[in-house]
């Protein structure tokens, strides 16, 4: 089978024969649809594509993809994916995870894969809730979230995923919305083109346990006024009428008229501007930022680790087992 003989792939080529089992109306459906379509349009080879996930609603994703897939254990998808990619850097590796999976139980692995900058794409479905265990507050739920395990409201401050990623030296950080297929496709393409760990937070509607956040900010009706799309090289403008803007004022960000908006850059030396923008979500007066927070270059771990093997072979020659066993001082007994 060669690529030349292969007819153009369609979304169907990326869909497995398994029945999709998310709740009706769940935002995951839209994401699955967008990803399958993107991979087909981008001409990807299912045989060279691997989806690795942890545990949670989102992590069922690989079962629905007609690619290689590994549904691993809670929080550990980045660690498993590291092995997959290091063992075979030619594979196109995608990680699917959720807010609990990646920021609670798997927080350590997320931080380290970002720091190592393996060339993989992370799709983090953030619904600010534990769905699969039936609705406990998550590390991204706002303070005061009242659920069965927090009848008096949650006390701990939430993680801002983009800030977590930026703090972990992520080279690509973006946010998109499950229902906005155009924006998501654009974001997937940018992530795919990026050589390094691409972290995409997808605001995902859990219709069963946590639709309030979604309704207030991301729902189609309010989206234009409640979100801003960060596009590098373009002024930070939002609103249905495109009349609102954002600009930096010293160490703060503030709202302004559209014609006074600053031009956004995702490749500044310091992560500070992106960190400041990501922090806007704490402020109900400010729009929820989506789009590209950061995109910079850094060396890839899987390349480096395999290059060391090549370098060692180049310097010392390909080792024969005999050189290892019969090494050091030996003596012979007749």
């Amino acid at each position, binding site marked *: 089978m060669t690529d030349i003989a292969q007819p153009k792939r369609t979304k169907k080529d990326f869909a497995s024969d398994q029945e999709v089992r998310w709740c009706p109306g769940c935002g995951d459906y839209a994401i699955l649809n967008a990803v399958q379509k993107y991979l087909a349009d981008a001409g990807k080879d299912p045989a060279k594509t691997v989806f690795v996930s942890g545990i949670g609603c989102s992590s069922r994703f690989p079962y629905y993809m007609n690619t290689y897939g590994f549904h691993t254990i809670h929080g550990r998808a980045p660690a498993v994916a590291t092995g997959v990619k290091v063992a075979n850097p030619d594979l196109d590796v995608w990680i699917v995870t959720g807010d609990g999976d990646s920021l609670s139980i798997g927080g350590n692995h997320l931080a380290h894969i970002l720091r190592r900058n393996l060339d993989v794409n992370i799709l983090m479905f953030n619904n600010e809730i534990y769905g699969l265990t039936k609705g406990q507050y998550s590390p991204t739920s706002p303070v005061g979230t009242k659920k069965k395990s927090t009848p008096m409201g949650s006390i701990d401050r939430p993680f801002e995923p983009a800030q977590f990623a930026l703090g972990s030296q992520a080279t690509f950080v973006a946010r998109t919305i499950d229902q906005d297929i155009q924006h998501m496709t654009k974001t997937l393409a940018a992530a795919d083109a990026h050589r390094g760990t691409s972290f995409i937070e997808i605001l995902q509607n859990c219709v069963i346990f946590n639709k309030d956040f979604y309704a207030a900010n991301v729902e189609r009706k309010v989206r234009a006024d409640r979100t801003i799309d960060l596009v590098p090289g373009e002024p930070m403008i939002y609103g249905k009428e495109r009349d609102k803007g954002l600009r930096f004022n010293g160490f703060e960000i503030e709202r302004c008229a559209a014609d006074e908006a600053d031009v956004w850059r995702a490749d500044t030396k310091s992560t500070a501007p992106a960190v400041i923008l990501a922090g806007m979500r704490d402020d109900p007066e400010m729009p929820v930022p989506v789009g590209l927070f950061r995109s910079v270059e850094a060396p890839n771990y899987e390349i480096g*680790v395999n290059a060391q*093997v090549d370098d060692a072979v180049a310097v010392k020659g390909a080792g024969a087992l005999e050189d290892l066993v019969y090494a050091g001082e030996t003596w012979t007994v007749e």
Partner: protein
Amino acid sequence: MTTTSAQDPQPGELPLQQLDRVVIRFAGDSGDGMQVTGNQFTRTSALFGNDLATLPDFPAEIRAPAGTRPGVSGFQLQFSSEDIHTPGDAPDVLVAMNPAALMVNIGTLKPGGVIVVNTGAFRETDLKKAKCDTNPLEDGTLEGYRVIEVDINARVNEALAESPLSNKDRQRCKNFYTLGLMYWVYSRPLEPTLAWLEEKFAKKPELVEANQLALKAGYNAGDIRELFQGQYEVPKAKLAPGTYRNIMGNEALAIGLVAGARLANLKPVFCSYPITPASGVLEALAAYKNHGIVTIQSEDEIAAICSAIGASFSGALGMTGTSGPGMALKGEAMGLAISTELPLVIVDVQRAGPSTGMPTKVEQSDLLSSIYGRNGDAPMPVIAISKPSDAFDMAIEACRIAVQYMTPVILLSDNFIANGAEPWPLPDLDAMEPFEVEFTTEKSDDFLSFGRNENLARPWVKPGTPGMEFRIGGLEKAPTSNISYDPDNHQAMTDLRHAKVRKVADSIPTPEVEGPESGELLVVGWGSTVGILKQACDRVRAGGKDVSRLHLTHVWPLPHGLDEIFSKFDRILVPEMNVEQMTVLLRGELPEHTYVSYNKVTGQPFLVAEVAERIEATLAETKKA
């Protein structure tokens, strides 16, 4: 107390006496370089042609307060002209660099043994640090031993009077003076250590010179100062013909993993998080990169095993290494490897537990947790290394089982093996049998991702293979690899996973019985007790009584044929460094026999004498019963 001092030379000719075997223990502050001293003595003795075994015994703290008892670092070795299997029960000679080292180790010394003591470190302040109210050199503590007093501090200063080194740096050459002294006593050549120093400090010629001077000064002191009654010689051992090298367990294990991956024709990927005493394996492998091995130092124990699993999923041979606490952390991921039926080698260099326990001390207490310690019914083969040189073969064996049965395998080592050293009869590499992996690349009509071959192993398909895309995970699966909650399927898959692991027994030999094939008592051991149990049984037999011995290398599944062997003995004595773990296993698997458990969990290996005594006592009880 018989004291010889430099001021009190013994008259007359110095005779040269022959000895069969000698046990020396070097002990000093952890900053005194006792491990280096011990390793140098070992190396020189190995090159000379002695058989030997070593037991490093160091504190968990990198630098406990100088001069205190917790800061004492020891290195014991036995070298011999005969075949030996242990570092020796009790030292013949104790070299004590300070009062703390003396007090910590005096109890292990043979009655009438020799103590070489550095009197330069017995000032009031030194005694205080070692919590000695009176000076042990004067208060009768050393009654019954032969004490050789040398002011090593002063002698080293004299020897290095011309050296450009600072006073402090000169004092750091004390261990080489001591080594020189012991080289003289046991007629060892200086050359190997002189050459080693040149290589070690190639960039610091002043250190080469100072240490060489100290070594020679120590050697000459033996000659000139007549501290000892004479010199001794331990002739070459009559080892089996072949080529040998001296090897430590962790190193042999690392080489075995490289060899195993090569025999499987797979890229090895070793992922590990630093932990005592397993870090040595990661460090050794990291130096073998030109042999094609990829090493990852992971962010934690869980990441290490998960990355290794990911590597195996990609078609490499994933491996991970750790010690007890790390095993506990890896438990869930081991279940994933069992459920997805991916090959994986998990090295556990056991240490004393529970919890953090005693990281630098030896124990065999991860046996049952290795076999049973995971959620759900999660069977996995477990094999155990017996001695440093055996680590090579057992690492290969772990790789073989992993790829032939598509399963994770636990390879148990322990602290005694990891840091112990002995001569390794080097294997004939051409004679090793490959077990090359064949990946499945095409779908036959009846292809199933969890179909079975004659070993009950499933096919190994690696990502990148066109047309074979499949999904796996930790959820229960049907033979197609699709998720299944079907009750009958779960029963069938659970049964299959067990049957597969049991099937490994078809590929392993039945252990041989040493001694009579039937009788009153069979001693059954596993792991690093092998040499001690062998010598204890030899000793009992030399005393005219019958005892037999069997050693297990494959602890799960147990080899075939044990039931028949065991049935020929009245009782089975199971000595192990844990609380009854192998006994519990044997009672469950082979319940028809009478087991007597014998446990030691002091963090120190068994002594030959205590095991021999126990065997005798058990024999006496058996008679009565």
